């Protein structure tokens, strides 16, 4: 089965092509094309995953491009991480395809939406089976385009247009880092192959500085894609896209690609302490930074977006603390519960037609499925014991502690508290209390929307049990099997960490409960609406404005300055040349009076001039 893994990405590509060419004719039926072909991918992925449990890594490649005596290859590789990612991506993609059938129902560009979904899924699946950096980069960019197209799906909305543009350009800034890192690495090892790179790192063929440099450059790519600080601002804006898209791309799969990249190149990063520390610091900072913004947002999707940023920061922290398994594990559980949360949020939006949580409330009774499912997701992300998020978060905290970063550990703990708090704030404001908006027409979503959510809900609960301190670390052992560079399958940590994590998350839930359900603590206890801290948080620390004032203004300024040069200097040069030519021409044509005498005079003066010059300088006349 594994030798046919290359088929997995091709199914969605086929879907993309079919829908692009015949979408207009297929109309609503295009959903079935997409769903069936992603289902095929999912089936193949599951088969590959199960086969990978027993079989060794499969890798194959062919010559893609010849440059003199350099041969660049393309191919695919099925190792543990890739097989796992294949499963996650195709599963979420399949569920989102199904869900969208209901959510996007009635949209006039329905086939286009499915075509874009197919393109994205193709790119994402291609990304996770790439055996070399170049191919990774290629699909890395393609998922960016998929994301771009889907964010801008409502193309007639100015916000969607701006968000799509912003997403593409900001991730591209990161991609350039990856691009440079990849090329530098290539000239060090003469190969893009992961295996060749790891071998060179192992053999010490690359200098320490170079490893650090390339690792950090590649990490910049991951920062862009995974919305880490300081390139995080596009991700919340990306919520302008349709909600299923947010679930698929901006929660479960693409944004996790940065984490995947770091994980896939983990042996390279592990070779540089500085690079790892950078990742850990950025990850931890992003985790708490985004969580704090999430505390005050009022748009349901933006809260979830900041929570995504924060959770991705967690994963980065894990990887940076050498917790390979912890990072990947959280990537998996997060994919399930965050996709669930988004789909549930989509279901809510579908029901009430607003995204502002101030206008919701009291939906628990009306949305019989969505409410409990959303609660499951919230519990999972808050790290309440027995849910999947609890186990993975615990692993990360242990990794951070054992990795020797007590400060980062503390930050992570605070972020965990905040996460629990704002997620339950969200839950209470949406589902409990009085209805604050018009809810007459609220109804539960159709089945093809609820079933995917139910499946994800189940996974959000049970996915954590594949790697627990109690029932054995099956996932961890499997992931690091045969590859000592990735570290241990399970890191033993002190038991108090788990207790602390539980206490912290319960405390967060308690505060949220008191504030937003019981309302026994006023909402403005810590910081009132309208005071400085609240304003700063509401405005996301003014990062966007800062960029607008610095980077964008600088670029514009430089552009106008260059235009000034172009118009006045270069064009002036041209005008000067043209003027001289024209002037010469005019004088020349004036001289053509037709009078032989004038011609003779001019010719003679020229001759005289020459004669004088010769006489003075000593030419032929001397």
């Amino acid at each position, binding site marked *: 089965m594994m030798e046919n893994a290359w088929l997995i990405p091709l199914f969605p590509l086929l879907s993309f092509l079919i829908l692009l060419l015949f979408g207009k004719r297929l109309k609503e039926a295009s959903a079935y094309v997409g769903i069936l072909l992603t289902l095929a991918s999912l089936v193949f992925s599951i088969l590959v995953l199960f086969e990978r449990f027993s079989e060794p890594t499969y890798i194959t490649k062919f010559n*893609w491009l010849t440059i*003199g005596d350099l041969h660049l290859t393309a191919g695919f590789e099925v190792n543990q991480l890739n097989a796992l990612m294949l499963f996650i991506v195709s599963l979420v993609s399949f569920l989102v395809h199904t869900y969208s059938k209901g959510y996007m129902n009635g949209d006039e560009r329905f086939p286009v939406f499915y075509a874009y979904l197919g393109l994205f899924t193709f790119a994402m699946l291609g990304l996770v089976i790439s055996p070399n950096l170049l191919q990774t980069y290629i699909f890395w960019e*393609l998922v960016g385009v998929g994301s771009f197209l889907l964010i801008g799906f409502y193309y007639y909305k100015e916000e969607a247009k701006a968000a799509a543009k912003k997403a593409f*350009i900001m991730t591209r800034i990161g991609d350039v880092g990856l691009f440079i890192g990849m090329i530098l690495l290539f000239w060090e090892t003469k190969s893009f192959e992961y295996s060749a790179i790891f071998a060179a790192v192992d053999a010490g063929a690359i200098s320490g500085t170079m490893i650090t440099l390339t690792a950090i450059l590649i990490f910049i790519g991951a920062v862009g894609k995974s919305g880490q600080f300081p390139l995080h601002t596009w991700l919340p804006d990306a919520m302008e896209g349709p909600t299923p898209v947010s679930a698929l791309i901006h929660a479960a799969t693409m944004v996790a690609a940065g984490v995947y990249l770091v994980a896939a190149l983990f042996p390279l990063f592990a070779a540089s302490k500085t690079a790892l520390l950078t990742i850990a610091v950025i990850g931890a900072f992003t985790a708490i930074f985004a969580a704090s913004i999430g505390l005050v947002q009022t748009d349901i999707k933006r809260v979830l977006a900041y929570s995504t940023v924060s959770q991705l920061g967690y994963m980065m922290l894990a990887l940076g603390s050498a917790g390979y398994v912890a990072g990947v594990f959280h990537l998996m559980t997060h994919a399930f519960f965050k996709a669930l949360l988004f789909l549930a949020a989509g279901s809510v939006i579908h029901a009430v037609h607003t995204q502002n949580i101030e206008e919701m409330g009291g939906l628990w009774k009306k949305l019989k499925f969505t409410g409990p499912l959303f609660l499951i997701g919230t519990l999972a992300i808050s790290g309440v014991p027995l849910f999947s998020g609890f186990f993975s978060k615990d692993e990360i905290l242990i990794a951070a502690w054992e990795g020797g970063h007590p400060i980062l550990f503390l930050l992570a703990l605070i972020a965990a508290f905040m996460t629990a708090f704002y997620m339950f704030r969200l839950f209470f404001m949406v589902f409990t209390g009085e209805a604050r908006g018009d809810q007459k027409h609220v109804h539960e979503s159709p089945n093809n929307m609820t079933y995917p959510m139910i499946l994800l809900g189940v996974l959000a609960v049970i996915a954590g049990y594949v790697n627990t301190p109690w029932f054995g670390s099956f996932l961890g052992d499997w992931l690091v099997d045969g590859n000592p560079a990735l570290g241990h399958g399970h890191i033993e940590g002190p038991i108090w960490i788990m207790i602390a994590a539980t206490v912290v998350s319960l405390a967060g839930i308690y505060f949220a409960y008191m504030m937003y359900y019981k309302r026994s603590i006023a909402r403005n206890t810590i910081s009132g609406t309208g005071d400085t801290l609240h304003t700063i948080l509401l405005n996301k620390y003014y990062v966007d404005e800062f960029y607008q004032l610095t980077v964008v203004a600088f670029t514009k300024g*430089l552009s106008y300055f260059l235009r000034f040069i172009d118009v006045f200097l270069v*064009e002036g040069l041209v005008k000067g040349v043209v003027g001289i030519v024209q002037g010469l021409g005019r004088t020349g044509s004036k001289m053509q009076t037709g009078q032989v005498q004038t011609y003779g005079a001019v010719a003679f003066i020229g001759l005289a001039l020459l004669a004088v010059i010769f006489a003075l300088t000593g030419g032929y006349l001397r």
Partner: protein
Amino acid sequence: MNLHAVLTILVFSPLLGIVILAFMPKQAEKLIKVVGLLATVPALLIAIAAYLHFQWGKDLADFAVSTSWIQFRGMGGVPEPFFSVNYELGLSGFQLVLVVLTAVVATLSALAAAKFVKKEWKGYFMLFLLLEIGMLGVFTAENLILFFIFFEITLIPTFFLIGKWGYFEKEKAAYSFLIYNGLGSAVLLIVIMILFGKTGTTNIEMLTKIIADPSAPLSGDLKLGLLISLLIAFGVKLPIFPLHSWMLKVHVQAPPSVVMIHSGILLKIGAYGLIRFGMGIFPEQFKTLATLIAILGVVNLLYGAFLAFIQTDFKMVLAYSSISHMGIVLIGLAAMNEAGVQGAIFQVISHGLISALLFFLVGVLYERTDTSLIENLGGIAKGMPIAAGFLLAGAMASLGLPGMSGFVSEFMAFLGLFKELPWIAAVGTIGIIMTAAYLLRAVLGMTYGKAHREFTGVLDLRGVELIPVGVLMLLIVLIGVFPSVLSSPLQTTLETIMLGLGG
């Protein structure tokens, strides 16, 4: 099989069309268009056949032809008693891909012309076919004099095509085109004549050998001077900052079908000349100038990108984007290694296809809406989704999206330069970001967002218009996904160049 006549037929096949057109009445619009279009087809078929000939493993040297043409006595002081100019055509892998590109773009441009040209079709197509002869000749000439003649043949028809069938300021654009390119070719002529006078030959292969010989009657300084002159001569064509301003006018004022040719092929003559003559004949000196060329390349790349960022006319955006993309060619050349040079050549081809596509679309948009201002066009995705889709796809190709040809060339050019001059290359990567920024700004400004005004009766791409965009898009994706269709013919050319560079 005797294939020596093939190239001559290829180059002069449009002549048949010119002759037929000459005897046709001016008013027979349909017939003229059909003849004009069909006259480009033989060249296209032959070019494709030659490509297949190569891919089937046969030797391209089969096509070479060399006949004695002009001979005259030497004027003393030169090794050989005779100066001879032969009629020499040939085809290397590099030339082959350019000829195919030319033939394809020419046919598509003829198709576009049948759509866009509104008056005096007879004159247009005759000049157009003459232009095609010039272009095909430039890419197959094996001898500098012949090259120069064909080079000049391309100038005159272009001048008239711009000056007569262009938009409002067509005359100005045409003159500015002629003056710049005239000066460029004057410099080129001087270089050719000095080479001819000093060595007694203009055959490119012979020249390469003679120049490489240290006992040749050319001092190092002279060679450097000649190379710098070549850089200027082809720099006008490419164009290199600050010799670019003529090209902006041409891109804005010329009719779309001519801009397809101009941006797609004519600009590439500059790159071709730099690679074939600059790098091929003066490899040592090229090495000396590599850093300068790299800096010029980065300047071109960034300068074009930043200026494209604030343009209000989409044609201007594309014009500056051409400058920016030609910077990548220079970057690739400056790397002086296989990856870089191959990247440069790829960029030449890829930009040819992409800009032909984009300018065709601009032509369509202009025809439908009478504007190419970004501001005025907002929201056309609603009215013409197919055109908007292709526009977006073209922009993606242009900004170097993997899976399309732009990426492969950009990637290889940077791959090459990072090996030699990493810091300059690192500065150049800002261009990658800026390219995305300005293209998305422009294309999204036109296609996305609310429609500022309703374009009544605006029709989407249809019928015959889909052929050029479809074919170009297909080629762009083909090269992006299977770059070996291009890279395999290039290997021998690369080896030759690398041999000259001693690396």
